[in-house]
């Protein structure tokens, strides 16, 4: 992982007693659902997990995750966003908060709730009221100038994932440059290069999430 620092001093910890809420944002088709599935597979035996999806159309993402059986059905909830995926994760997070609360009420203690945003543009950003931490997922084949352009998601997400590196050569994208540009606009916050096609379990991202969960637990234990 191309991190200049191995921890983020601004990293938020959830209030004691509730799950860590991890937002997964990024443009349509960049691999958010594939990453959500990967994290569920990697972490479900170690942690109590649940997922909220915000697909703009029907319940595609939730249905995909159910079919892939990465978690039991009742741990996956879909929220509709009235054609405004960014509103539902940033300006008006109430439906997502209600969904998270319902999952928590249904399953008791949860360690981690993944909230996958509906695919959006580069200005999308999760509200800190919804997500303690957020990952922004870019498609390496979707234009290698995207990290340089920045934008709130690319610049501020706690982890930037540049996915589909397997497709980069076909699209003429220079992944090394993307990583360099990303690290620059992100002030050294971590960047992960993934190919969910070649390594479907995204070990480097799962390791980052494990670290965040350990720190959240440590912070909760240290709280008075």
């Amino acid at each position, binding site marked *: 992982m191309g991190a200049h620092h191995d921890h983020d001093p601004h990293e938020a910890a959830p209030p004691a007693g509730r799950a860590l809420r991890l937002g997964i944002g990024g443009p349509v088709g960049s691999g958010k659902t594939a990453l959500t599935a990967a994290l569920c597979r990697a972490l479900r035996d170690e942690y109590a997990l649940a997922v909220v999806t915000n697909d703009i159309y029907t319940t595609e993402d939730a249905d995909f995750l159910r079919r892939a059986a990465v978690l039991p059905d009742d741990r996956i909830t879909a929220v*509709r966003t*009235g054609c405004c995926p960014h509103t539902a994760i940033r300006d008006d997070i109430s439906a997502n908060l*209600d969904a998270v609360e319902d999952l928590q009420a249904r399953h008791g203690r949860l360690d981690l709730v993944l909230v996958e945003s509906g695919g959006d543009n580069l200005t999308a950003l999760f509200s800190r009221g919804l997500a303690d931490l957020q990952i922004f997922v870019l498609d390496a084949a979707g234009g290698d100038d995207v990290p340089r352009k920045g934008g709130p998601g690319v610049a501020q997400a706690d982890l930037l994932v540049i996915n589909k590196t397997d497709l980069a050569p076909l699209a003429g994208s220079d992944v090394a440059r993307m990583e360099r540009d990303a690290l620059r606009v992100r002030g050294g916050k971590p960047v992960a290069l993934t190919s969910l096609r070649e390594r479907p379990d995204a070990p480097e991202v799962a390791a980052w999430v494990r670290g965040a969960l350990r720190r959240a637990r440590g912070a909760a234990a240290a709280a008075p």
Partner: protein
Amino acid sequence: MAEIPAALLLLADARLPAGGHAHSGGLEPAVAAHAVTDLADLRDFLHGRLATTGLTGAALAAAACAYAAAYAPDADIPPSGDGSAGGRRGWRGLDAEADARTPSPAQRRASRAQGRSLARAARATWSHPGLDALAAEVRAPHHPLVLGAAAAAAGGTPRQAAAVAAYGAAAGPASAAVRLLGLDPLDVHRVLADLAARMDEVADEAAAAAAGGWDALPAPSAPLLDLLAEAHVRAGLRLFES
């Protein structure tokens, strides 16, 4: 009318983070059924909605506002209730009145989902004993109840609560129409402006009705909206919760 407290403008503002953007007030299934395809259809739809569920919701909001206001520190606690003979039915009683006036289960769920979200936003914004009592007594109250209690918390009158409800009954689906049909937002706002006088009439009627007992609150409904709401939850393509 009395001056509008600025706090009440917060409550009427579509930017209030209370989940309204994901509800179309029945417009999405109406569009899916090709019942609303253009601006003229939208005008008729809003007119009908205002006269039916709009009036019902506005009257419930006015009643809730009056009831919540009675919880104020200088009023009788607990308030003596519903205005009908001998009633002390509390918030659950008014919530049951809303249920009775909402025949479609899908619409009940949508109303409660919006009520829950609005309660969260209102209680984060204002502190008011009537609002707190509502949240304590009913887990996910019907939306008009929360709207009325929030209006009281914001210093509004029952008539103003009814106006905010009537406005929302038309403005919510109008905004959904812009998103679903690509209608010109300026045209849609003209339609809303043309409806403003109707909204005031509905608010007058609602506030007058709410001054009587809860039993006698108006209950006009729109069977087609009820059926569309039920069809909506079964639809494959849904961008809105309701």
